[in-house]
């Protein structure tokens, strides 16, 4: 690697939002051909800093230099023309559009004197680019129909299509499977070899150690340190990030396993397009254990959740909760029978964002005494309940009257967990409970899950993140194409083996070439 020439320099950037300084005099330098990690807790200001570099926000103070020139990045257009591309934390894809349409959007190849989009040329270009970088994307597919991993590749292609030399990845691995992560890391290495420079935001310290050249750490908007990765270790990074010592090793007592409480037997459910989303899925969950469901996204996990919670009806099979058949019950009946769900999508399914915390805390129990008396809501009881949960679960909110929308992701998640755990369920289903959260928040949530287990409850953990599954579960069931294809103990397996089970690995597949 050549001696790093500076391609981006951000000097003394300050950006304020109402009531908060998101970036406080932060400086940041990116060298050519470098992979530079940006690390910090939720809300530390990482995305904000990068959004400034990409022209989405204007800083109150500070200067930006690109390739040695002082620039004023007043919008994404300017950033793009400077060769900056960004893969956003929340993908910026138009779902009803095809892959190609998304990629060319804004700089379309034209025909007929610019009157029409030259689709043929566009598809060719995308196909070519996809080959060049080994991304393997179907240019004709609709975004709606492709996996999250593929969607991310579309985002990457978008930047490459625009000729970006400086690529910003904002938490690109939060939503990916282990295989996809491995592939992404390869792709990134590939990119720097082709002369690109990369800024990588991630909460996963392992990834930083594995791939980054430098790391910059921010905390509460302030720059803490910027140092070469060589010579650091995860513990040291974590400590710099949170400002205190964190134990990355997750300790839990041996599980005391009791009788079966959730018995799922040959569950069948039709998915979209008539194919079986659940194909005779069977497993048993016992008291006092955490069963992790490992699997690549889209292998029936969502359908399994819908079936268990009564959100969708099943085509066959049985679900017994503490001996009672719950297949065919309504969501409410299932909930009353003792099943709680921490849903995967907290914004869409877990909360009413425009309601205050107070009212979100009784979303499933509002109709029960003491929250409702004679048809009227009892706000004293509701408030007391909310105050207690906020305190017990350390939900950081200005007050219980604050709208849920205003809470940070981590605190929103804590609120949901508080609500679900407090229902004192027999079975707690946790779907992707820590997606996008920082190490501190993750630690908190994992502890709560184990606490439930230790109280003799049963926990079903559904996650696409192998690390999480391996750390938290007492037993792991692997789901593949709607079927449980194997069960293992975390202590008796490893990433590789699990990864193979998850993809029903039979023969080597043509991965990205390098």
């Amino acid at each position: 690697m050549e001696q790093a020439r500076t391609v981006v320099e951000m000097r003394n950037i300050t950006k304020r939002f109402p009531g908060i300084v998101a970036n406080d005099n932060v400086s940041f330098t990116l060298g050519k051909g470098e992979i530079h990690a940006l690390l910090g807790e939720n809300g530390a200001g990482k995305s904000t800093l990068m959004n400034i570099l990409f022209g989405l926000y204007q800083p109150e103070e500070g200067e930006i230099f690109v390739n040695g020139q002082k620039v004023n990045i007043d919008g994404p257009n300017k950033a793009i023309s400077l060769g900056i591309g960004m893969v956003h934390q929340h993908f910026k894809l138009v779902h009803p559009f095809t892959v190609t349409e998304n990629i060319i959007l804004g700089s379309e190849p034209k025909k007929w004197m610019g009157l029409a989009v030259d689709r043929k040329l566009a598809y060719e270009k995308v196909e070519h680019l996809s080959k060049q970088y080994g991304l393997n994307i179907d240019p004709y597919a609709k975004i709606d129909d492709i996996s999250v991993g593929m969607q991310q590749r579309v985002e990457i292609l978008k930047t490459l299509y625009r000729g970006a030399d400086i690529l910003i990845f904002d938490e690109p691995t939060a939503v990916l499977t282990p295989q996809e992560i491995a592939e992404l890391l390869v792709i990134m290495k590939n990119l720097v070899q082709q002369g690109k420079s990369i800024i990588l935001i991630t909460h996963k310290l392992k990834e930083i150690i594995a791939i980054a050249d430098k790391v910059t750490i921010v905390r509460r908007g302030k720059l803490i340190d910027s140092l070469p990765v060589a010579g650091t270790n995860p513990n040291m990074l974590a400590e710099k990030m949170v400002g205190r010592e964190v134990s990355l090793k997750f300790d839990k007592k041996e599980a005391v396993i009791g009788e079966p409480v959730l018995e799922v037997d040959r569950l069948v459910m039709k998915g979209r397009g008539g194919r079986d989303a659940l194909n005779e899925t069977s497993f048993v969950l016992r008291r006092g254990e955490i069963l992790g469901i490992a699997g690549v996204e889209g292998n029936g996990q969502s359908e399994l959740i819908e079936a268990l919670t009564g959100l969708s009806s099943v085509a066959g099979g049985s679900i017994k909760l503490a001996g009672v058949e719950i297949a065919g019950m309504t969501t409410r009946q299932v909930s009353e029978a003792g099943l709680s769900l921490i849903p995967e999508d907290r914004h869409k399914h877990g909360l009413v964002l425009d309601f205050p915390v107070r009212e979100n805390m009784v979303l499933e129990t509002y109709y029960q005494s003491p929250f409702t008396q004679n048809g009227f809501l009892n706000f004293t009881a509701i408030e007391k309940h909310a105050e207690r949960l906020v305190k017990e679960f350390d939900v950081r909110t200005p007050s219980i009257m604050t709208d849920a929308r205003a809470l940070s992701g981590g605190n929103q998640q804590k609120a949901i967990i508080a609500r679900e755990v407090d229902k004192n369920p027999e079975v707690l289903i946790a779907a992707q409970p820590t997606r996008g959260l920082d190490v501190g928040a993750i630690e908190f949530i994992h502890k709560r899950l184990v606490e439930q287990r230790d109280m003799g409850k049963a926990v079903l953990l559904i996650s696409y993140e192998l690390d999480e599954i391996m750390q938290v579960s007492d037993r792991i069931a692997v789901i593949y194409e709607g079927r449980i294809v194997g069960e293992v103990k975390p202590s008796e397996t490893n990433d590789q083996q699990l990864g193979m089970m998850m993809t029903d690995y039979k023969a080597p597949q043509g991965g990205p070439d390098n």
Partner: protein
Amino acid sequence: MNKLIKVFTKESAVVPLIAIVLGLLVGAVIMWLGGYDPILAYRSLFNKVFGNPYDFGETLTAITPLVFTGLSVAFAFRTGLFNIGAEGQYIMGMTGATFIGVNLHMPWYIHAPLAIVVGTLIGGIWGMIAGYLKAARGVNEVITTIMLNWIALHLSNYIVRRFLLEEGKGRSFMIDENARVTIGWLSRMLDDARVHWGMFFALLAVIFVYAILFRTKQGYELRVVGSNADAAKYAGINVNAGIVKAMFISGALAGMAGVFQVLGVFMNQAIAAGTTGHGFDGIAVALLGGNNPIGVLLGAILFGTLSYGAAGMSFGANVPPEIIRIVIGSVIFFVAAPGIIRWGMKKFKHKSSKGEAV
């Protein structure tokens, strides 16, 4: 209580006030450009409304249906539904009340309440049709309510003609004395203005809607459905039933507007060529009131006062009464886009601080 207080907190009280002033100013400028005397016009408007007991009473009567239709639209909005059909529900409510009022003969303590209940129910059912079609078939309620408005108009004309017609009058028979809800003593106090119990029902409806929405389990459910239907489903709330219920209540409220127009004002139902617009005005009132029951009440008062006073403007200052629609439109505009007012205030402050510096 908190919500009540919220209504009167600084920002939310000041912006509407400025909006009203600005709206009146817009009207004044237009009148002035048209060669009218805006001051005389507004004075005439004020006089028309507050100048004598009769007109004051009639203003109350004009406000009453707007409170109901405003609540109707606001209620639906709160539950995530856009009810453009208050107009049709109003007409159906009217027809229900007329039917009972004309065809039955009972003591007043049964007759009037029965007419109110039946009219209200029919309005509710009319709203429920749109709710049902949305819940069961996914048909957008905006289209169905628009269509149902026209269907209601013609259907009620048919019912009046076929079952209720007083030959040669082009309207139904007068309703039974016992079905009327006029308030004799108050009416006499107000120089025979057609005041009726409907306005007290309107106030009750404000409280009722407020209580339902923010105080009851039912309202909580409906608001969850309105704010995030997916979350409602995950929370075990029956979203489809919620939609149907919400449209029933919304329709019933609009129906009540029609009920009291028959039982308190007209005492009959005419074969109508078109709709009265109370339902559409209800949309404006709901929006003026920020879809909050108390806001709706205030919005209806403003709307009703201006509309009723418009005749005074045209009488006293010869101003075409259409001007008042511009005024109302402008007020809503400024209420809806508080950004404009804030932007204006900022500019203003900026300027004056600059002035000081110089």
